């Protein structure tokens, strides 16, 4: 029935919106019934659990991490599950009466129900990962409920989420470590194998993580402040999450894992120190509040502290007392929250200074409040008294625990602090009751609320009384819980009357002291300060929060500059580091540099360098953009010559043409830019450039000349002609062997051209003016005559280069560049050419290149495979020629697009009307229609 119980609550979440549609705020009632049904399903299993069995249900869940969806029901789980479902049912049957009819309840009920399922999941989880999942879901639900629908809760919810989020991550860490170290995520197995697989060091890391998770969830110092902050949530939420259940998850976690850590004094000492400190601190703060919800919140903080301290004592009796206190606290604190909500609704205030004498108007409310407050104060015959007695007894017995080594003072100190806490608790409990219900009645027209409103508070208040009178009812479950947290079965004997024990004497002291504190309140408050204190912890949180944001802004400052140097600095550092590493690790002569290959340096290299170095120096020093461009072209030219001398005619030719076209395209653009006379020459840039140059040079030296020609080179040289029918191995690599790379590169050119077409040519109004800036009228006339001769020659050359490309230097790319040169010459000379537009060239070029890729697959080969066909007259042709034609067209298209867009030259009106109409239009859309036509 275990899974049915969880599934019932969990799946109901999906139906809440539907219920809300028909029932509105009354949806709480059916949900309460669901909770009770779920509890009943669990109770079916309870006889077995009470007889000492643990019920386990397990399914495969995430095999990758070996995580099972395991549910487990033992005494500890049963106790908590009953609280979750029982208090849940009460709060949900309270909410309909509490909520304003206009309140948006859909979200509230959905999240509340989801929370209940997740909380139930936590206590039923038999798997670490599953536990973690449910844990995080409760955090999230708490956040959503505190944040509410509006603005008031946002910041409090944020604080709460950060604090509990830290705890969640901490638990995450603990869970992963446990899983990795024990090789299992099954909680029972973890405990079984812990002694052999978990070292003390492991536990010393895992322990603090679990403690952090529990302390944040259960609002222990110094993380306590989120809980009073969370009181902005509506009262049903406060009653359910922030009093009865959610905050107990931390206690549950400590109880669950305490068997692992009972022998570690640091664990016990930490829990006791922080727990008792929190207990006293919380109680003091509660005493000083005027707002009833704040008071109850601090009271919860205090009580949680006591529970943590009890877990810290580490004896079986103390753990039993902690479990008992969990139950007692859930009963009286939920009651009090609900009653405060009632008072708030009826009297319109939660401020102790404004409330008085409600006894007369609302006697039943007063009586119930009295019962709950007495339980909280630890007065007999209520369950709170029994729990407190057990707590005192356990604290006194601290020396019995293994970790204290029998030092008597530990018990005395712990009990003394606990008595102080109890006295303060008595005082503020008395104040709630006395402050609200005694004194003169100042408000008129106050009535007892309807019994429907009161009933949910009535049940736990009376339950507290029944269990107080007959605490023996709890013996079984408490005993079973003790076994679950790692102790041998003991027979508890919970009872109202233990005779005149030490614990009773301590109780009497606490009550006496508490009475003094209450009745001499004025005196106490003079010492404590009359006004509720401003909590410091949230302010510290805010300071850290905003400090972190500011620090983050500082860290991210580099992202707010567009200075290139800043952004490339890191790369430079990495490369320099790599160079150093290379120098160290690469074996060989000269710290990583291979020996010089004899004959690789030629006398002509000196001549080349003699031209290259001054050109680069002038290039770096010139202030004229045009001069820089020309010099850059010159440098390219020299390198092309160098490449030619090294025996790479195809590469040299390509480079030469690219350099030429670059100058032609860029010159008119640059000529229109203002000359920056004030460009500073940066020493940093110079140094960087030299370092980059030296490192690059060394890298080339280091990485080349280490081997003979590669297998691949040998293969190409030996086989290319046979395989492709082409004798120019460079071209066969480009179009046959690595046609895909070429296809990619021409796609890049296509995209570049697309970018040029897309750029609305806004600046090119006075296109003819640009020409006159570069060339005089006379020069232009000469050029025109020359051009008429040169252009046809260039086109013929392009055709020849294209055709022979497979066998001799040339090919589609080079031919395209030559044809592009013709277009460029025409452009400079102002001659209009009757060739297709850039747009048409590009589209057809890429289409042809892509189409040729599919010839292979269509005839049963591979994509881009060159297919040979024997044509009668011309001989053997391959489909790579088609591909190369596509390349050619794209290259010409790019050159054309560049000239049109960047120079705005060489286009007569006819061309402009065809595809340049966008020049006049501001937007790309208009241009689009122009081109599409």
């Amino acid at each position: 029935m275990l899974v049915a119980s969880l599934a019932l609550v969990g799946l109901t979440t999906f139906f809440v919106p539907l219920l809300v549609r028909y029932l509105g705020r009354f949806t709480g009632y059916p949900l309460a019934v669901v909770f009770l049904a779920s509890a009943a399903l669990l109770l079916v299993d309870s006889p077995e659990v009470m007889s000492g069995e643990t019920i386990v249900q397990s399914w495969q869940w995430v095999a990758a991490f070996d995580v099972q969806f395991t549910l487990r029901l033992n005494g500890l789980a049963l106790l908590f599950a009953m609280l979750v479902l029982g208090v849940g049912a009460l709060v949900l049957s309270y909410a309909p009466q509490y909520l304003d009819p206009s309140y948006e309840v859909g979200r509230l009920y959905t999240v509340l129900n989801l929370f209940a399922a997740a909380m139930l999941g936590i206590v039923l989880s038999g798997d670490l990962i599953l536990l973690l999942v449910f844990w995080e879901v409760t955090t999230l639900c708490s956040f959503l409920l505190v944040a509410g629908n509006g603005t008031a809760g946002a910041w409090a919810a944020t604080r709460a989420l950060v604090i509990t989020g830290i705890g969640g991550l901490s638990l995450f860490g603990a869970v992963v470590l446990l899983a990795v170290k024990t090789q299992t995520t099954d909680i029972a197995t973890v405990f079984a194998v812990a002694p052999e697989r978990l070292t003390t060091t492991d536990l010393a890391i895992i322990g603090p993580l679990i403690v952090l998770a529990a302390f944040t969830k259960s609002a222990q110092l110094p993380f306590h402040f989120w809980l009073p902050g969370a009181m902005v949530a509506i009262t049903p939420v406060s009653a359910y999450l922030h009093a009865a259940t959610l905050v107990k998850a931390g206690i549950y976690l400590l109880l669950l894992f305490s068997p692992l850590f009972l022998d570690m004094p640091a664990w016990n000492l930490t829990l006791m120190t922080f727990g008792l400190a929190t207990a006293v601190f919380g109680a003091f703060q509660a005493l000083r509040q005027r707002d009833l919800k704040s008071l109850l919140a601090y009271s919860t903080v205090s009580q949680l502290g006591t529970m943590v301290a009890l877990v810290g004592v580490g004896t079986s009796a103390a753990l039993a007392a902690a479990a008992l206190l969990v139950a007692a606290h859930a009963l009286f604190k939920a009651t009090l929250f609900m009653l405060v909500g009632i008072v708030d609704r009826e009297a319109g205030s939660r401020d102790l200074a404004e409330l008085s004498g409600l006894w007369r108007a609302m006697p039943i409310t007063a009586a119930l409040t009295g019962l709950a407050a007495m339980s909280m104060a630890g007065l007999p015959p209520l369950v709170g008294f029994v729990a407190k007695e057990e707590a005192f007894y356990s604290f006194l017995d601290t020396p019995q625990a293994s970790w204290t080594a029998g030092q008597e003072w530990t018990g005395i100190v712990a009990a003394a602090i606990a008595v102080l806490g109890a006295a303060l608790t008595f005082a503020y409990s008395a104040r709630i009751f006395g402050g609200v219900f005694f004194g003169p009645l100042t408000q008129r027209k106050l009535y007892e609320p309807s019994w429907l409103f009161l009933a949910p508070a009535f049940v736990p208040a009376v339950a507290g009384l029944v269990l107080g009178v007959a605490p023996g009812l709890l013996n079984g479950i408490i005993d079973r819980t003790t076994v679950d947290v790692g102790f041998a079965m003991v027979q508890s004997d919970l009872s109202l009357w233990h005779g005149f024990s030490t614990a009773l004497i301590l109780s009497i002291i606490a009550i006496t002291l508490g009475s003094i504190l209450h009745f001499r309140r004025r005196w106490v408050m003079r010492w404590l300060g009359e006004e509720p204190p401003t909590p410091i912890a949230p302010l510290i949180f805010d300071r850290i929060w905003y400090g972190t944001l500011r620090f983050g802004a500082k860290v991210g400052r580099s992202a707010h500059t567009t200075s290139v140097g800043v952004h490339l600095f890191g790369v430079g550092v990495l490369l320099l580091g790599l160079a150093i590493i290379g120098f160290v690790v690469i074996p060989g002569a000269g710290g990583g540099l291979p020996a010089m290959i004899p004959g690789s340096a030629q006398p002509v290299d000196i001549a080349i360098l003699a031209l290259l170095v001054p050109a680069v120096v002038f290039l770096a020093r010139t202030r004229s953009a045009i001069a820089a461009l020309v010099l850059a072209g010159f440098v390219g030219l020299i390198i092309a010559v160098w490449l030619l001398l090294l025996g790479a005619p195809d590469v040299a030719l390509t480079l030469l043409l690219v350099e030429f076209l670059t100058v032609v395209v860029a010159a008119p653009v640059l000529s229109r830019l203002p000359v920056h006379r004030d460009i500073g020459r940066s020493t940093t840039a110079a140094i960087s450039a030299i370092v980059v140059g030296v490192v690059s040079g060394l890298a080339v030296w280091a990485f080349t000349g280490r081997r003979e020609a590669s297998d691949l080179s040998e293969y190409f040289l030996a086989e290319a002609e046979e395989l492709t029918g082409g004798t120019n191995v460079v071209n066969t690599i480009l179009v046959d062997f690595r046609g895909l790379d070429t296809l990619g590169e021409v796609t890049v050119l296509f995209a570049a051209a697309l970018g040029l077409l897309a750029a609305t040519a806004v600046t090119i109004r006075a296109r003819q003016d640009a020409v006159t800036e570069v060339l005089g009228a006379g020069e232009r006339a000469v050029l025109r005559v020359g051009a008429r001769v040169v252009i046809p020659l260039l086109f013929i050359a392009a055709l020849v280069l294209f055709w022979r490309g497979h066998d001799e230097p040339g090919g589609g790319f080079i031919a395209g560049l030559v044809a592009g040169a013709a277009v460029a010459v025409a452009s400079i000379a102002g001659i209009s050419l009757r060739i297709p537009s850039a747009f048409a060239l590009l589209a057809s070029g890429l289409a042809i290149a892509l189409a040729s890729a599919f010839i292979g697959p269509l005839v049963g080969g591979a994509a881009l495979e060159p297919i040979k066909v024997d044509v009668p007259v011309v001989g053997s042709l391959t489909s790579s020629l088609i591909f190369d034609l596509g390349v050619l067209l794209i290259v010409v298209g790019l050159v054309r697009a560049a000239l049109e867009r960047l120079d705005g030259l060489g286009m007569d009106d006819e061309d402009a009307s065809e595809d340049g109409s966008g020049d006049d239009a501001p937007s790309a859309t208009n241009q689009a229609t122009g081109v599409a036509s």
Partner: protein
Amino acid sequence: MNIDIAFLSTWALPLVFLGPLIAAVITFVLGASAVSRFIGLLVPLGVFAVSIALVIATMDGQVVVSQIAGWPGGVAIAFVGDLFSALMLGVSSLLVFTSMVFSYAAGLGIDRWFVPAVLVMTGGVYGAYVTADLFNLFVMVEVALLPSYILMSRRGTLTALRAARLYLIVNLTASTLFLAGLGAVYGVTGTVNMAALAGLGVLPVVGVATGVVVIALSLKAALVPTHSWLPATYPYTSPAVTALFSGLLTKIGVYALVRIISLVYEPGQLVTVIVVLACVASMVIGVLGALGEGTIRGVLTFHMISQVGYILVGVVLAGAVGLAAVVFYLIHHTIVKTSLFLTGGTVEHEEGTGIIKRLGGLARAHPVASLAFLLAALSLTGIPPFSGFWAKLGVLNAAADAGSVLVFAAALIVSVGTLGSMLKLGSGVFWGTPKGMREEEDEETPSDVTVGPETVGATGVAIDVATAVEAPPVTRWRPLLVIPGLALALISLGIGLYPEWLLALSDTAGQSLSEPTAYVTAVLGGGS
């Protein structure tokens, strides 16, 4: 299921690259028409279909190879569909599809050049995911980048152009460096076939030469210390483009780093230490930067840096376990980050600004966008039951397995920052006081806290929301703007609720990455 491997190898794999290009030509000619836009959606769907077929074909560790142009293995450029590539194809085509829907809703579809540019870009991205040739990878990256320069500057504002200039220079630097590294690798090994390079990193000279490529790719992936360009550029273009870029472009860098590092280097080399340090630095610096940013996309972009650290750290941790974590995290992150960018983009589009200070309380006006943000933010933070939880679990698991205290602690502590920055966005944009109701204040000054503590009250208690009467919500949302982000967030939730299948796939992919024998044999061992 029966998948025709021959069909995949002959048609489907090459089409992953060629298909988008064909579509690019068609849409280039058609211009801004409904048909173009439809094609823009059809292509990612087609690639998604191919990726599913590939996943099915490769989920048992098999490798599908297409030796382009039919040359023998080692000579030809090989397109390879292994599980990692197949998953990346799937997730990126999914993102392209959702981002395209968003782009159209945001009005970018009327730009005549938008669809062809995106198609060319995505063709390059898909190609990069399947190529097994280092030089071809360079080419594919270029194919993806050039259209991105266009898209980056298309917004036309001065800030966008400034950012585009920086973007261009940084990426050209990275490309140059990539090319130089390729030269070095070829210089020392005589091959650029990735399979042929497997394991060669143990030779110091190859290790260092490959190091140049790794640095170039780190710059593209924005790993610390080469990260700062990313938040200086991404937030300044249009939101749809940022979403596309975040899901595609930096991810190529990340993908290539995973592939190359796992293939070339062996565990325990010096590179391990360097990568771990860079990743941890990325986690920390990225999240701090995110906390300090003042715009939605600024926060999200800095986050990418942090998350790249989370993704890549597994490459050098704990072998197959770490690599499985990498694969899962990469997929999760790509989905969730795109979702956040899309939702953030919706806000920017509808409200006209992404500056957090000028926004607030949008939960009422944009309930669906708020929900999408909440879900995605939770996933990013790693809260169950979202995919981010399993992703983080994978990283922590790998770190604990490898005994790396540094990574383990960093992964946990940085998560607090992730949570914080998501809360900053959440409380600054979606909850809190709507704009106009809040005084203009300098966000960095503590006085800004008025949104919180003072109204909430130092006593910790304030208005009981139950009785607060609030104005009826003004619901205003355009479905097509909001749904893409929400859909991705829901996918993350779906993965989180039933993570088994993706974890199992990641496991297999991680195994293959850590033991690449099948990959190497497939690529080098003869024809298709």
